[in-house]
């Protein structure tokens, strides 16, 4: 027997799955354009499975950043650990299900789970969204990679601009507070200024110091704030907490 709350969790989960999986297409095509082969592209979607980290890795490695690409991907993945801490209480996975739950703990599954009101609906929202996106994201990556193989010169098709636009899309839902906007602007200017000075990949990592310093000092920040995680979901914006 399914309650209304559980049915709603299913509905929200499925709509986020469809919206999010669709842009696995752009990841697959961009990964091939960045010089990765089909298998390398698929390993990223199957194993790394975290959109921001995947886009960061291919972007920095394509520019010749090497190990800086690994560092960028890992730092962008840090927020998943934060989601895991709250999802452990919500999902309460046991035994073999624990690594599975951890693997599908991403922006969207966390956001849909937290948007539900009762525990069973939260667990339903988490699993439907997390497992659904893992399947859809990988199918879309495969389709995008096969498409990217046919395209040839990525610049002729504007895929270099698409890569930049993808990061704008990942950033946009996180720019709700003045503090976040200020950090984003300062980081972008600093990274651009460092482009001619530092080797590939390093400008992004050095510019990330801005976020850490402002975060630790709460400069420009609100005096009072909640300790709730705000996953700022991409895609349809469903399940977002204000």
């Amino acid at each position, binding site marked *: 027997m399914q309650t209304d709350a559980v049915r709603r969790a299913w509905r929200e989960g499925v709509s986020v799955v469809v*919206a*999010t999986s669709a842009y696995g297409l*752009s990841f697959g095509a961009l990964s091939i354009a960045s010089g*990765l082969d089909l298998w390398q592209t698929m390993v990223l979607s199957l*194993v790394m*499975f*975290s959109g921001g*980290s995947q*886009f960061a*890795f291919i972007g920095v*490695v394509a*520019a010749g950043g*090497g190990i800086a*690409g690994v560092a*960028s991907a*890992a730092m962008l*993945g*840090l*927020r*998943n*650990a*934060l989601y*895991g*801490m709250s*999802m*452990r209480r919500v999902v309460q*996975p046991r035994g073999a299900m624990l690594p599975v739950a951890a*693997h599908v703990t991403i922006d969207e599954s966390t956001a849909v789970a937290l948007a539900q009101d009762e525990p069973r609906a939260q667990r339903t929202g988490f699993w439907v969204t997390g497992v659904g996106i893992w399947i859809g994201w990988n199918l879309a990556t495969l389709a995008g990679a096969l498409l990217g193989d046919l395209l040839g010169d990525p*610049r002729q*098709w*504007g*895929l270099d*601009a*698409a890569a*930049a*636009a*993808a990061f*704008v*899309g990942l950033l*946009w839902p*996180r720019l709700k507070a003045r*503090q*976040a906007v200020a*950090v984003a602007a300062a980081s972008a200017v*600093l*990274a*651009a200024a460092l*482009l*001619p000075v530092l080797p*590939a990949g390093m*400008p992004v990592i050095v*510019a990330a*110091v801005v976020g*850490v310093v402002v*975060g*630790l000092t*709460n400069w420009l920040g609100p005096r009072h704030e*909640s*300790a709730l995680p705000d996953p700022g979901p991409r895609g*349809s914006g469903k399940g977002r907490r204000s």
Partner: protein
Amino acid sequence: MTLWHLLLLASIAVLAIKLLGYAVPPAVFDSPRPRRTLELLTVSLLAGLVAVQALGGDGGIVLDARIPAVLVAAGLFAVRAPFIVAVAAAAVTAALLRAFAGFP
């Protein structure tokens, strides 16, 4: 290191970080400061990546069709267009400007 080494290292790191979230006691990060710092680190990294992807090239800054394309995408994200639509619009903008308007 080959591309495969980098790729496997990064994939395992991201996966290990997810597992770590389920392993550490929640109290460790259950206060505003670490949460805020992680959130702003994410914002900082993504903003840096926007700048580098839109302007980077030839070991410095290159101004080309990516800039108008990114502005088109930002406008679409501002009116809550779906991710795939805005990203595709950026690609089409850059491709058209290069093909017909002589943009580099």
